[in-house]
């Protein structure tokens, strides 16, 4: 019967054994975890920190998918559709990238302040210098994107602290922001190569990238939006500081032309052609198409070498393999020239809007007999960039895949897309609430992909390419020196690569005529850079987006029942008014979101918002 004692002792000692080791019971903390000391003592971590900054560079965004007249998104609830319907304010600030870019900006400061802590044995001084240059480029890039979207923003030169009074950071002026971006680009350019020697560095900015950004920014500053725009006279800080330049300065066009010329002068970039890709004979179609599909080429000035090309292809492709979300408009279709280099409104262009084509085009990639005349004999870029009714599907490699796109009666192994009402990509199958236009994007779509099976192949996402710099140059030069022969030369580089004759042969009257030439340059830009986000920003900086013709969107007559006629249904090809988009001039700038205004009381809102 010693059990009682035993238990007393047991209970007592249990009590003690609990208390004694107890002091350490809570000494639980994440061991072996990444802390800031470890982060900056190790090359891999420091590099990863830099990669994260790159993550703030955006890919497909609102300008690519339907905020301008070139495109529409089929789903009415999506943000771009809300924006073009005018359902847009500082409170539901769509595509509000403010936080995204400022986190990138903060990280770039932290990176530059700390990367030198990594031991030399792991990371050489040369690499540290290069990385800091990349970080500076990225900060400049983020500011540049903020300027495009919001106008001048808060310029920071170091990371802020948690307990800072954020209410004392007003917006800087447009010129201060612009100068800061130029300064960062200059600083970065010093320590970056003209072009990357090793392919493993593709995707990093080069000296060429820095200069190209300066070209973009210079053109932006010269354009009417920020060059003495009276609408921005009211854009002032609370202390009265005017944020926009108040008067027009014609010299800014010269600066813009010089900035573009600086890129050209590097002699490191050229327009891609299919010859670069192993082609034996120059072919404009394969040149303008494969420019986007090659793993790398010398036209690329800045790219993001990882992006969701599957999602883009899926959304751009027609049903049933794709989902028909990104739609090209009749407006952009009409902007493409005929293959003789003439615009379709030109009586000499031989453009016909009615009837079916009697013959196929000369090239394999051209139109086919029986397709609507509207699509016949257009310029090569039309076939490379526009999916129209009856044009065979591209991302479908096998006959079986192609047939998948055809109704029973249309199966012929080519996969002609059926945008008509009862077709497989038509309004009936895709839903009557969805407003498709009768066109999809074909740019950046690869024939090696199989979107029905969701198979896609690698390609970089090109953010900035040399063709844009050439067009920047032509445009700026035309504004201050319309008689300069380099205008025609530069513009023709782009036209010739696209298989079009020189502008001076088609429209000689434009040569030396500033207004006329401007029209052709902007049209060239519209076609060459379609679906690349440029159209929206060109219309913005030229103060053209609000023009009624750019807000009135036409489509094909997709919602009329073809009664089983299929491709033979001619009413399909009736131009149909789709949208008169809601426009107010305040939309030339995005609103600064109320969330940000609430957290920095020194910020002033953009005019009209």
């Amino acid at each position, binding site marked *: 019967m010693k059990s009682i004692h035993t238990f007393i002792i047991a209970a007592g000692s249990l009590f003690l054994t609990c208390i004694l080791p107890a002091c350490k019971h809570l000494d639980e903390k994440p061991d072996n975890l990444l802390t800031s000391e470890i982060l900056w003592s190790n090359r891999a971590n420091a590099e990863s920190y830099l990669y994260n900054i790159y993550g703030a560079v955006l890919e497909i965004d609102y300008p690519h998918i339907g905020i301008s007249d070139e495109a529409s998104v089929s789903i009415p609830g999506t943000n771009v559709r809300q924006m073009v319907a005018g359902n847009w304010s500082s409170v539901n600030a769509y595509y509000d990238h403010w936080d995204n870019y400022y986190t990138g900006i903060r990280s770039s400061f932290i990176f530059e302040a700390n990367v030198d802590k990594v031991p030399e044995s792991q990371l050489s001084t040369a690499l540290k210098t290069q990385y800091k240059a990349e970080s500076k480029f990225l900060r400049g890039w983020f500011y540049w994107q903020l300027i495009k979207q919001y106008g001048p923003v808060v310029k920071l030169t170091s990371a802020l602290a948690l307990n800072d009074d954020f209410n004392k950071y007003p917006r800087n002026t447009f010129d201060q922001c612009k100068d800061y971006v130029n300064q960062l680009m200059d600083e970065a350019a010093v320590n970056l190569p003209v072009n990357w020697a090793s392919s493993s560095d593709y995707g990093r900015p080069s000296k060429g990238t820095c200069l190209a950004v300066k070209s973009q920014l210079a053109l932006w500053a010269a354009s009417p939006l920020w060059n003495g725009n009276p609408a921005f006279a009211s854009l002032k800080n609370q202390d009265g500081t005017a944020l926009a330049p108040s008067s027009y300065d014609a010299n800014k066009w010269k600066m813009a032309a010089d900035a573009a010329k600086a890129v050209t002068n590097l002699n490191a970039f050229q327009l891609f052609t299919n010859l670069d890709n192993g082609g034996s004979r120059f072919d404009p179609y394969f040149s303008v198409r494969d420019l986007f599909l090659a793993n790398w080429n010398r036209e690329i000035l800045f790219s993001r070498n990882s992006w969701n090309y599957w999602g883009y292809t899926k959304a751009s492709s027609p049903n049933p393999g794709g*989902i028909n979300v990104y739609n090209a408009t009749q407006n952009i279709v009409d902007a493409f020239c005929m293959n003789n280099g003439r615009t379709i409104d030109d009586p000499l262009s031989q453009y016909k809007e009615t009837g079916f084509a009697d013959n196929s085009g000369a090239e394999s990639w051209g139109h086919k007999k029986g397709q609507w005349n509207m699509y016949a004999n257009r310029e090569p870029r039309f076939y490379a960039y526009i999916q129209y009714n009856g044009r065979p599907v591209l991302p479908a490699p096998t006959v079986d895949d192609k047939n998948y796109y055809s109704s029973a009666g249309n199966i012929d192994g080519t996969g002609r897309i059926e945008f008509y009402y009862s077709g497989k990509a038509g309004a009936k199958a895709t839903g009557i609430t969805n407003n498709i236009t009768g066109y999809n994007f074909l740019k950046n779509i690869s024939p090696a992909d199989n979107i029905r099976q969701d198979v896609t192949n690698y390609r970089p996402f090109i953010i900035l390419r040399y063709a844009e710099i050439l067009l920047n140059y032509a445009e700026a030069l035309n504004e201050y020196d319309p008689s300069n022969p380099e205008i025609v030369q530069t513009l023709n580089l782009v036209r010739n690569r696209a298989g079009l004759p020189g502008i001076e042969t088609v429209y000689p009257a434009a040569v030396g005529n500033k207004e006329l030439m401007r029209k052709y340059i902007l049209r060239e830009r519209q076609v060459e850079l379609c679906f690349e986000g440029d159209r929206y920003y060109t219309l913005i900086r030229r103060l053209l987006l609000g023009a009624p013709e750019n807000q009135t969107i036409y489509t094909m007559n997709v919602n009329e029942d073809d009664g089983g006629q299929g491709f033979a249904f001619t009413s399909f090809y009736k131009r149909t008014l789709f949208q008169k988009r809601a426009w107010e001039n305040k939309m030339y700038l995005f609103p600064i979101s109320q969330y940000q205004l609430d957290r920095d009381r020194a910020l002033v809102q953009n005019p009209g918002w």
Partner: protein
Amino acid sequence: MRLTTIVLLFTLMQVSAATFGQRITLNEQRVSLKRALEKIHNQSGYNFLFDRNVLKGINPISISIENEELETAVKKILHNLPLTYLIDGNTILIKPKESSILDKAIDKLSSIFSDQEIRGKVTDLKGNPIPGATVTVKGTKKATATDVDGNFKIKADKNEILVVHLMGFVTKEVLVGDQTEIMISMAEEDKTLDDVVVVGYGKQKKVTITGAVSTINMADMQTPNRSLSNSLAGKVAGIISMQRSGEPGYDNASFTIRGIGTFTGNTEPLIIIDGVQRDDVNSSFGGSYNNIDPEDIQSISLLKDASATAVYGARGANGVLIITTKRGTAGKPQISIKTEASMSGLTKTPKMLDGVSWMRLYNEANINDGNQPVYSEEIIQKTASGLDPYLYPNVNWIKSTYKDWAPGFNSNLNVSGGSQSVRYYVSASFYNQDGSYKVTKQNDYSPNLNFKRYDFRTNLDIDLSATTLLSMNLDAMLVSSRYPGLSASKIWYNAYLTPPIAFPIQYPDGSWAGPFNNGGSNPLNEIQNSGYSTEFRPTIQSIFSINQKLDKLTPGLSAMARFSFDSYSENDNRRTGRNNLFLASGRDADGNLILNQSRVGEQFLGYSQSSAAEKKMYLETNVTYDRRFGSHHFGGLFLYNMRSRVVSSAGDVISSIPYKNQGMAVRVTYDYADRYMLEFDAGYTGSENFEPGKRFGFFPSVSAGWVISKEPFFKNLSATFNLLKIRGSHGVVGNDQIGFSGNVKRFPYLGQYGSGRSIGLGFNGTIFNGITETVFGVENLTWEKATKDNLGIEIGLLNKLSITVDLYKERRKNILIARSSLSGILGVTGTVFANLGEMNNQGVDANMEYTDKMGNVSLRLYGNFTYNNNKIVERDEPKQQYAYQQATGQKLGDNLMYIAEGLFTSTEQIAKSPSQFGANLKPGDIKYTDVNGDGVVNSFDKVYTGKSDVPTILYGAGFTVGYKGVDLSLFFQGIADVTFMANGSAVTGDGAQGAGIVPFTGMGQYPSGMLANLEDRWTVNNARQDAYYPRLGISNQNSNNYQPSTWWSKDGSFVRLKQATLGYRISDALLTKTAIKSVYFYLSGQNLLTFSKFKLWDPELGANGAGYPPLRTFALGLKATL
């Protein structure tokens, strides 16, 4: 028995010895014990051995002995003293009474020399035998229990006292005297005064409790519900409970005690089962406590104020729910059986528009929008005729998806009993419930939901000695269920989303219909043919404890150690896949359907699995003290515990680190004559979540009570007022469970880095992953502190009516929040924490119960009421441009909305009004108030309305009336002062927000199906301001008419007939010849009726009408005891 050894242990004082006679005569008044013993020594010559310390504290005694035997004399002297004796030769050892081998020796000796066997019978006051009562001989270890007939046998000396004890009866003491046959009758305890209530780490007499503690009448918990939290609603004051889903297995109610005290961290109460924290056992599944069969529960206590919860320190701020399971009592095996068969249906399924009305209204919406009508009269007529349902389908998807009744079954068998030293309670229960999907077994599997639960429980109590109790609880539970291949919420969403005219369910050849390219879904097909998942969730919960009485150190002291481990896992095997779908495009020349394959399915179902597991370890040691000195009663508790919880499937380093807690608790109670009570409670607890030096917090509380009805001056009133008591408490409790909601992470004091965004580099775009700050380390973080006050009054009238009312107030500070006033230009990626939040919470709760018996009729009436309101005091909110948009100062859950003034009546009115949403406003659209008067209605014109979807008023009321063997009970439960935003924003799925509610919204191929209520709309010809829907249009959440506004803010109050039971107990007379003790049949119903102003769906679902509503259940049951 080497007595000498023991004797040598004492400091001895020998009294001089001589030889004298054995008869003693002694008459002394107020003489010291030592002096009395000396006199006996002088008379008898026996030597007395004792430790000086033994006599310390013994008051002078008065003795009157006439010619008694020596031993009797010694006994009489020591009677009522904490001393005992041992005679060895001519030496008498005097020693403290204690439980030791010496006691045993004494007992043995005395039994040899003097004990006689006593026979007795214990009955109640009516003479019915009482089995299972414990009979002990006072001051000895001798004990026995009464048998079934109340009989007992025990050896006792005639001077000894028998103590008869049984829970629920007044303990009785009887002097043996010369009797050998003793009849003992026991009175039932006056329950209101002597009820014992389970409180934090112990039990207290109900009348002396000074904190706010409610208990739940277990009789009210006998429902066919699977989930315990679900049965709690309305049963007791202070519980705020809402059941947001009725899907079997996922139907737990979310509940809080006394409302919501914090706006970020965990708000759920601590759940204690049999003394061990178990709220997070199977927490991802609502907590395993929900699966305990109510038959196995002895009691449920609700600890509500700081006094009651302070001992839980940093875990007590949200209140504590203590569940105690049943234990065995000595006696023959008592067998109880309960078995129930039930049929369950959905309380309310929404009525949907039929195809014809849908098309007409869709046309109307299009015309209103300025478009052409879409459906021609011909198509509408073809659909209406129903002649070709394959080309012109008209399907009510909700009716095709859900069936009216699904069977269920549950059963519990438990056995309790035991001998005097080993007692047991073992039980087994089984629960089975089918889902309400209208599916069948096809393709070799049935996808219908089936929920099964097995629950085995063993509670053992073993008296290792009279002072040592070893207890062990083992509970093994298995939930084994099957679910369709997609979630219940998805199924509901699909049934809402799919329009009636989209496609038929199946074509005549048996092929299933569905759209191309996933442009919508066929709801029934998705359930029937998407596969299934089987889930099993075993849980083991165990407790091993030893309780040692330490009366020998000082009477009333005991110590206890408890160790517990719990482990559970969740294991899912999923077989999911897609089948072929077809869509008819027309009929061929022969009139046969032309079917196009719209989806290519998979031949076999795919396979995937997931599993997760957790373990919990808990260790507790405590010392308690409970002793009465006359009218003074002291109680004390000192406790130490530690706990650790490990998640095996944590998924990241931070979550894989054990969650650890450690704490101490102290309780000191004092009461004088059950009249004046004073209590101090404190917890000192620590959590691993904070930085060293900040881990521990001290949480004290004081409380006091006064039982006025026990005052002498109250005597005249006591015939009416059997109880009048007031009590109050004040204290601080904490909440360290700050890592539960949103992105609040663990170890917020440490800067943490995690994976960030990435970049592709090189010719093939090799991905390089980035790292970024995920948590921005901030120093000096600590737990939430809740300061709580409580004032309560308890009234008992005529021994029939009892009323308890509590007023309470809480101020929660240091709420750990993610900073929200940080500007975007700061550019921090991770969350930044700060103890900045503050919130107030206050309310009233009250319970009432009335019981009476009039002849053969018995009546019990009960009710409870809870009112609770809260206010956010601080949440690091930047100053809003308009003060009325400041969330600070508002109620939690109060959302900004527009003020709807009504519907526009004319285009002139629209032209004169501030601009609103969209450019094409027309009469019949909602007109909003331009609150800031800037000429534009935009989000600055949203205001707070003071309404929330968390109810401020909850109540429950019911009665039971019995007549002879028949009884009927009804229980109503309700909530009030609750609103929800019925603009569809809560109806979310893969497609459009607001499916079924926002007219013809849709993101896929089809505009959404619609509630039949869409007919109740504004039209040009019937321009009613009181229409449910404004002017129709193709709308979405951004449309003018579906902005969150007072138009869509609906009153969510309801009253439910939650339970109704009609029962019949077979009279005892019929059972006398059988082994059966009682048999009770009953028919019960759950959620039978609902009364609410809101008619479209079950109001308890709140804003998300597309949810699995609570079940309406009818059950037929039988209970028997053997």
